[in-house]
Structures are given as structure tokens and as C-alpha cells.
């Protein structure tokens, strides 16, 4: 069996949501945090001569995110779409993705972005890995190796951890670690000449309606409120010494220097 990487991606909503979002081609795009995950997978595919599968769960418009991934070089795109999935929280999303990964079969690596730009939870990666019972390393900056033996580096604020493990393993890829490639006009054109996105529904995954969507989701977003940042501009006057002292007084009062 050849070397195989699966990347879970998402078509996110752009712009700040207000109320119920109506999805359209104009407000949907591939989650920017997924680009490094795709890039990392594609580099390793080229190195190890394997293949990359991208999967996404979402409305039909999510197919465009898969097409974009395929224009970058992904070999196979799978869209999991079903009206019953509407309202799914991160746990249900993870359940669905885990079921899809199981159905795909053998894989060496399973990648995620660190989070999504529209809901920002960062939960789907680790939850999916847990359901599949594969090790998960978050925020991977670099990795090398082959099927049996991998060295993986992950970054933390002031530290870098190095892990050794064997396939299969899963990870979220640090957003700054792999600069995504530019899409060639020819590869985009070729992908659309023979576009083939597989569509799976709940029945393909042996999942029941009551396990997914709002019904299957233990969590609910009850309110969404845009934060207001109030900023004040205070003009300081006088010579430099006076201004400096006044500035220090202000900063002290604001608790910045305390």
C-alpha cells in the first residue's frame, strides 16, 4: 500500500457573521489555517511518493474548497454533505470525520489546520484523533521520516518539543510552518477539466440522523455578540519631560506598568 495522507479541511464563512449566515460562493472560502496542513501533506507526498486525500463536511458549496485543494495537488476529494448535518457541533463533526476516515481505510498521516477562521475552536482535530484512537500532536512545525519512524517537532511559546512515533499519527499543522504554494493556472485548469469530487451522505457512513446535526450535538451556541473595542486618543502636550511624566502617570493608572 502506498504512502497516504488524509487532510480534513473546511469551507469557512468569510466576514463577521451577524445572525443566521446565508452561504454563498462569495462568502465561502477554504479555511486559511488549512493551507499549511495541505502544504505539509503535499510536500510529504512528493517526498514519499504517495497520495493525499482531502475530506470536508459541509453544504454543497464546500466542494469549492475541495476543488481548490485539488488544484494545489490533492489527489482525491470527498465531500460529506447531508441535510441532517445542519447544526452539528464540533463533537458531531469529529464523529462524522472519524467515520469518513474509517471508510477511506488505510492512512499514514491525518492532518488538520490548527483551527478555523470562522468558529475558532481548534477542537475538531484532537477530537477526531481521539475517536479514531490515533496519537495527535498539535501545532506541528516540522516532521520527517517514513512509514515506521517519524521525528516530529512542535512549537510552544518558548519551547520546542521533539517527538518520535510511528504511523499512523495525526496532527494539526502550525499556521506559520508551511507557506502554501501558489496554484498554477495549468493545474487549476486541469482539475476542472476532469473534476471529480466524491459525495458521501450519512448512509455511506453508517450514521443515524439522531446522532448528528442539532439532535446529536451536546453543545449549542446560544448567543453571538460582536465585541466593541473602545479606544481613546489622549493628546499629551508640553515639552518632552512633561509629556513623558504624564505618559507614565497614564500608563500607571491603566495598570500597564504595575
Amino acid at each position, binding site marked *: 500500500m502506498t504512502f497516504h495522507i488524509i487532510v480534513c479541511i473546511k469551507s469557512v464563512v468569510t466576514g463577521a457573521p451577524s445572525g443566521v449566515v446565508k452561504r454563498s460562493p*462569495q462568502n465561502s472560502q477554504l479555511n486559511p489555517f488549512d493551507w499549511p496542513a495541505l502544504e505539509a501533506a503535499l510536500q510529504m507526498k512528493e517526498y514519499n511518493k504517495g497520495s493525499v486525500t482531502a475530506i470536508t463536511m459541509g453544504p454543497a458549496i464546500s466542494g469549492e474548497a475541495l476543488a481548490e485543494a485539488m488544484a494545489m495537488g490533492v489527489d482525491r476529494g470527498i465531500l460529506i454533505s447531508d441535510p441532517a448535518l445542519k447544526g452539528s457541533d464540533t463533537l458531531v463533526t469529529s464523529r462524522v470525520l472519524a467515520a469518513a476516515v474509517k471508510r477511506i481505510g488505510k492512512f499514514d498521516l491525518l492532518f488538520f489546520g490548527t483551527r478555523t477562521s470562522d468558529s475558532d475552536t481548534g477542537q475538531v482535530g484532537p477530537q477526531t484523533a481521539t475517536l479514531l484512537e490515533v496519537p495527535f500532536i498539535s501545532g506541528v512545525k516540522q516532521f520527517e521520516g517514513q512509514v515506521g519512524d517519524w521525528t516530529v517537532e512542535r512549537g510552544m511559546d518558548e519551547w520546542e518539543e521533539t517527538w518520535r512515533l510511528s504511523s499512523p499519527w495525526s496532527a494539526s499543522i502550525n499556521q506559520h510552518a508551511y507557506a502554501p504554494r501558489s496554484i*498554477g493556472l495549468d493545474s*487549476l485548469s486541469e482539475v476542472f477539466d476532469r473534476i471529480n469530487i466524491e459525495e458521501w451522505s450519512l448512509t455511506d457512513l453508517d450514521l443515524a440522523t439522531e446522532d448528528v446535526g442539532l439532535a446529536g450535538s451536546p453543545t449549542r451556541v446560544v448567543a453571538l455578540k460582536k465585541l466593541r473595542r473602545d479606544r481613546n486618543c489622549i493628546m499629551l502636550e508640553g515639552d518632552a519631560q512633561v509629556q513623558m511624566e504624564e505618559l507614565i502617570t497614564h500608563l500607571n493608572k491603566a495598570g500597564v506598568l504595575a
Partner: protein
Amino acid sequence: MTEPFLTAKHRILRRSVRSFCDRELSPIAAQIDQEARFPWEVIEKMGPLKYFGIQASRELGGAALDSLSYAIIIEEVSRISAAIGLCLSVHNSVAVFPIMAFGTAEQQQRWVSELARGQKIGAFCLTEPNAGSDASGISATAIQEGDHYRVNANKVFVTNGGVADICLIFARTDPAAGRKGISVVVVERGTPGFVVGDLEDLCGVRANPVSSIRLYDCCVPKENLLGQSGTGLQIGLVALDTGRIGIAAQALGIAQASMEEAIRYANQRQQFGVPLSRHQVIQMMIADMATQVDAARMMIYRAAWLKDQHQTFTKASAQAKLFAAEAAGKVTDLAVQIHGGYGYSKAYAVERYYRDARVTRIYEGTSEIHRMVIAREAQKEIMSDLHIA
């Protein structure tokens, strides 16, 4: 909302081109304008991504995209740098395209395979000091002598001239035959007698090395004749029909960028205690800009779509070019006005857009020539509908 004419391919294309231009071109766009410098470092990255072979076949190293994709690419590149959008438009539509359309298989292999990969850059050499809108008035000659042509020409305002490797030269192969004695001969840089003149010191699109090209007794093999002898003007017109879509898209990109800058500025700048955007007089300007930009975009996409459907598009592309160029003039003017004194300063991008927009009403057919084309085509259509003629 879904935009008419566009498919998923076009939307992904727009995002990809935009993200490439934001990353590679945007940081240097103002600087290359100031220095009048052709940015080889970006051009070299565009080559492998097939920006120089947008519609060329894949066998020849191109991307084989449709005309709508071509328009979107030129629009997006021009949104960041009109000079580079111009480079791509001319290279793709009036250098590569005529060779694809009229060249023999050998000629395509010989020239397009390198042009499409961006290894060589193309130019279209029609204009002369005394022949512009009246292309039939050229005095360049290409006289056949045995197995070669001896070419003498003085071509001016050649877009990409300073860097062009493969030049389509319009010249008289039969000086006695008038309009029917004009042909297209391909002359490569490096041919003895091929001289690149000084770069023009232009008002806008300054990062494009526009220059004159002079040919002194340049001898090229007779296999360098493109299409049939005497069909030069027809080849030129077909090329320009397509070229217009590119120049229209370039004008649209400039207008779009100006509108974005103007709206951004109008929402930041405070006067009389509120942002400019709260003043009704500024809102009127923004409304006009948005309407001009959208109308231009729809006309361009329609022309490109008609071409992709293999329908007649001469009038549609002339209308799109005329309207988009005029719109770019209006929109950049309003954008400068909204910026006030700052808009007149090189510290703000709208100053560059204002300069870049002006030439779109002049090259690849002036607005006046386009009105002539439109008037002719419109009358033909109506008269034939009315069964007159």
C-alpha cells in the same frame, strides 16, 4: 449572491491570482512604478505558474483556460500593478494568441512553447511614428529575397519592447498592394539589425518597458511569415478583438483598486466631526464608482463569455473596452478627489492609479476608434434586423 457568467473555476482562479499578487506583487507595486523597473523576480515566478500561457494549449506548455479566466487574471493582476497586467495582456492576447490562431504547427512549437512558459516575452509591433489608428498607413517593409525576408521597420510605443524576445512585426510585403500588401513577420531579438530603442518615460504603467524597436535590414527566414502573405491587417484585427478584452480588464482592475482605496479612506478620514463616508456628497461619488465598476465588469465578462461560446464578440469587446477605459478614468478621478490633497501625492496609491488609467483610453484602439467600430457593428446589426441593406 452569485455573479453571472462565473463558475467555481473562475472563483477559485480569482482567489488564487489575488493571493499570488498580494504576496508577490503588492509589496513592490509602488516601488517598481517609481523606479520604472521591470520586476524580473516576480515575472520569473509567474512563468512556471503559466501566467504567460493563459490560453495556450497544454501541449505547448500553456494553461488552456477560457477567455473569461483570462479577463479575471488580467483584472486581478492590474488591481495590484497595471504595468504588469499590461505585460500579461499584450503577451497573451496579441503575441501568443495570433501565433496559436494563425501559426503553423512548427511555428507554434518554435515560439509558443517558450512564450507560454514565460521563458520568452512577446510583443506586438504595429504602431509607427506616422501610423497609429490608421494601421494601413505603416511604412515598414519586409521584402522577400529568395528564402528570406529583409525587414526594415521603425516601431514605436511597443509594450514589453525593452524585454521582448519574439516580436510580431507588421510590414509591407507587397508595397504596391496597399492594405492587401501588409503581412505579419516574426522577428526575434538578437537577429542582426534588431535594435531596441530607449525606454519611454511614460506618465503611467511605468514598470512596463515600453520602447521603440527598430529593424535595419533584418534578415529572417521566409518561414517566419505568420499566416498568409497580405493578411496582416486581418490578423491584427482578430488579435485586437481579443486584446481589447485584456485591456478592458486592465482598466477594470485599476478602477476596482481605486474604488477600494477610496472607500477605505472615506471611512477613516474625519472631517466636520464624522468620517467622509457619512457625508452625502462622498456617498454620491462612491455610488457612481461602484456602478461604473460593476457595469464595466459585466460588459467585459459578457464579451469574454461570447468569445468562449464561439459567438461574434467584436461589438461586445469594443463596447467593453470603451466603457471600462472611460470608467477607469472617472473612477480614478473620483478616488483622487475623495483623497483630497493626499490623493495628489505619491504617498497614496490612487495617484498611481490615476496615471495608469489614462492610457487605457489610448492604446489597443483609442476610445474614438472603438466608437467607430461600435457604430459600424450596431448599424450592421440593426439594418440587418430591419432587412435593409
